[in-house]
């Protein structure tokens, strides 16, 4: 049989039962649409989270005291291991590969100014902090690079904290009290928004040495380091590790590169997307059962047609191909319709929820379509084999 005949036969049977074909398409289509919609949302979530995390820049290494391996407990727990000091931080800053560094101590204090009082997070940071985390100063300037031994009592306010304390008045040069100590406002940060539910604008930044004194601490909570974009993170991490090991006499710090963290995060989110996609896949399986049913019906309906074809000399392989082709065509068209519907719905969700950058991952689209075709093939095998095995005499007599 020529290819044209082949196509014609398959197509004609599809067109002859328009409603039936349409419903079968719909079954597969809904399944595929579910898979595409869900993976699109999953992928959107993925990108959203990654973007949140990379807004502070990607070439950051975090140094925390204590070797990793102690189980459980939130980060920042006190430890009997040797603490990270401002001297350690200064030594790291002198490393050739390092382009910026900020020691960090954070806490929670009452801030009072102009008769208003507010409890907020206080960050003790270095002069490089704004550059390191790609944060912008709105008005004034950031903390000056003072010598830790004599850090001046300057404070830079987050945008929200400034509003809460000073309203629309000018805050620059004003004095305020943090935990009983007097500070002078030298800058206000630009709005940064929320990060994972933490309001980044409701904070005050003071020199690290001042924060250590305020909270009566010996050691830093963490040191964040940036390096040139072109340098591999591992090389920088190794240099820091070697330096601190030499200073402390043992390897007692944990280094986390942003790459590690993003990769770990990405893995988790990939699993999530796949799981959600698999959930949608259940309806695809049901759609597959639909194709099996309809093809089985088609075979029994067209028994005498098959008998005639075989009697006229059509080979079994041809019959098999004919029915398989029909099943695959149904699945493929249904899949394509589903793709359109799913992607369209995803865009609609994207319009309704602007915070979620919905994006249809194209490799998933290909996988879904291939899956649909595979389901068609699989679902077609049983009925097609049944058709091919028919005895021509019996088949012709069936009517």
């Amino acid at each position, binding site marked *: 049989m020529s290819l044209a005949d082949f196509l014609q036969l398959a197509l004609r049977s599809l067109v002859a039962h328009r*409603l*039936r074909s349409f*419903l079968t398409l719909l*079954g597969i289509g*809904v*399944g595929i649409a*579910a898979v595409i919609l*869900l993976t699109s949302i999953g992928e959107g979530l993925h990108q959203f989270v990654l973007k949140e995390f990379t807004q502070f820049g990607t070439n950051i290494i975090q140094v925390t005291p*204590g*070797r990793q*391996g*102690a*189980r*459980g*407990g*939130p*980060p*920042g*727990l*006190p*430890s*009997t*291991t040797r603490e990270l000091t401002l001297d350690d931080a200064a030594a790291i800053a002198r490393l050739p590969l390092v382009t910026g560094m900020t020691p960090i*101590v*954070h*806490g*929670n*204090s*009452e801030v009072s100014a102009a008769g208003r009082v*507010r*409890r*907020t*997070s206080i960050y003790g940071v270095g002069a490089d902090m704004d550059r390191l985390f790609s944060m912008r100063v709105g008005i004034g300037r950031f903390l000056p690079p003072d010598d830790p031994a004599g850090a001046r009592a300057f404070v830079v306010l987050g945008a929200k904290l400034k509003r*809460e304390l000073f309203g629309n008045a000018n805050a620059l040069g004003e004095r305020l009290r943090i*935990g*009983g100590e007097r500070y002078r406002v030298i800058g206000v940060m630009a709005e940064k928004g929320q990060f*994972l*539910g*933490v309001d980044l604008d*409701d904070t005050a930044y003071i020199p690290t040495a001042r924060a250590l004194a*305020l*909270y*009566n601490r*010996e050691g830093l909570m963490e040191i964040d380091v940036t390096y040139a974009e072109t340098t591999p993170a591992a090389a920088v991490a190794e240099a820091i590790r070697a330096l601190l090991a030499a200073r402390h006499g043992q390897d007692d710090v944990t280094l986390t590169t942003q790459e590690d963290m993003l990769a770990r995060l990405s893995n988790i989110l990939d699993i999530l997307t796949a799981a*959600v996609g698999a*959930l*949608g896949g*259940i*309806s695809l*399986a*049901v*759609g597959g*059962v*639909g194709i*099996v*049913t*309809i093809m*089985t*019906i088609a075979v029994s*309906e067209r028994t005498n047609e098959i008998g005639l074809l075989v009697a006229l000399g059509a080979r079994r392989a041809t019959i098999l191909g004919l029915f398989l082709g029909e099943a695959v065509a149904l699945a493929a068209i249904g899949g394509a319709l589903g793709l359109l519907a799913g992607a369209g719905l995803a865009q609609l969700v994207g319009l309704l929820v602007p915070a979620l950058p919905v994006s249809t991952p194209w490799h998933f689209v290909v996988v879904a379509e291939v899956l649909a075709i595979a389901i068609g093939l699989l679902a077609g095998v049983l009925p097609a084999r049944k058709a091919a095995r028919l005895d021509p005499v019996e088949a012709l007599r069936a009517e």
Partner: protein
Amino acid sequence: MTPADTLRFATRAATGYPLRTALMILAMSIGVAAVVVLTALGDGARRYVVNEFSALGSNLIIVLPGRSETGGVGLGSLFTSTPRDLTVRDAAALLRAPDVQRITPLTLGNSEIAYGGRLREVLVLGTSADYLDIRGYRMGLGHFLPREDLERASSVAVLGATLCDELFGIESAVGRMIRVGDRRLRVIGVLEKSGQGLGMNTDELVVVPVATAQAMFNTNTLFRVMVEARSRDALASAQRQVEDIMRTRRDGELDITVITQDAVLGTFDRILGALTFAVAGIAAISLAVAGILVMNVMLVAVTQRTAEIGLLKALGATGRNIRFAFLAEAALLSLAGALAGLALGHLGAWGLRLAFPVLPAWPPDWAVYAGLGTAIVTGVLFGVMPARRAARLDAVQALAKR
């Protein structure tokens, strides 16, 4: 036609094409089974979390240092420094509140533990004698921390079961000296194995008196204070009293956060409940697909049985009778599919429970009813069009078709 006739007509139609019927039932059952298994999973997770929290003790209030204006429990309040420490004396003062039954201060930190040349990193918990009862743990061997003044730093330690196995193996641990950080401590007890829990795993913990831990970590502040109210009803008033006492002790400034377990639990409950619901909704899409299949097959059935319908009509059956007959068939198919799916789903949930014994993966009642209901409604709904088409057939033409 009597109802019995209608039913017979429908069942005969279904049994006449066993493969087709089986496939439709399969499709329906996949959908129902998916709903049942997934809600079992979601609800199991919810119940697991709720159980874990109730295991903490049901009338518990947690006091943590630091407070944010925005309130709630954020990343920032997990661990933070405050200018004013939350001290052991603060904790002891809370006992003066009439609705407070017991308190226990917690100091947490990382350290190294060593015995007989074996060395490992370990989480150290500094607390008091009441910790055992408040958390509802039991001792495996020996005694828990002695009941003594909170500021007394006795050199004793209680080990978690796993940690004890790792350090001592089959040797008896009680009475031995271990080194934690730079201190030598005598092991006075071993906790009974409690298995994996939320937050801290006590199996890998060293418990020491709170003053010992504070000296070890060179700190004055506490990580948490756990407060047990006299009863569940006294929870709210106990929380108020705790806040009042702390405010008085801090010159009118409330720089601590007081959370009740109910607040935390409620959040988890809502999140996991919504998750279960969403997952069930996604699974229900497959029910719609199955419904489309039912409609498709019923349409085919109408075409195939045109002559039969014509005959029935010629014999005096009304359109209504025919419609009922086909709807009954659709309903029967859906019901069979739904029941099969229910069985399949319960089997799956049972498998889940076997695979993850900690997870109480029972499908919630609402999901079972909703799954069954949706399946039957979907089946019947999608059966309406074919049934109407059958009912509308003209008797003469239908008979003539053959």
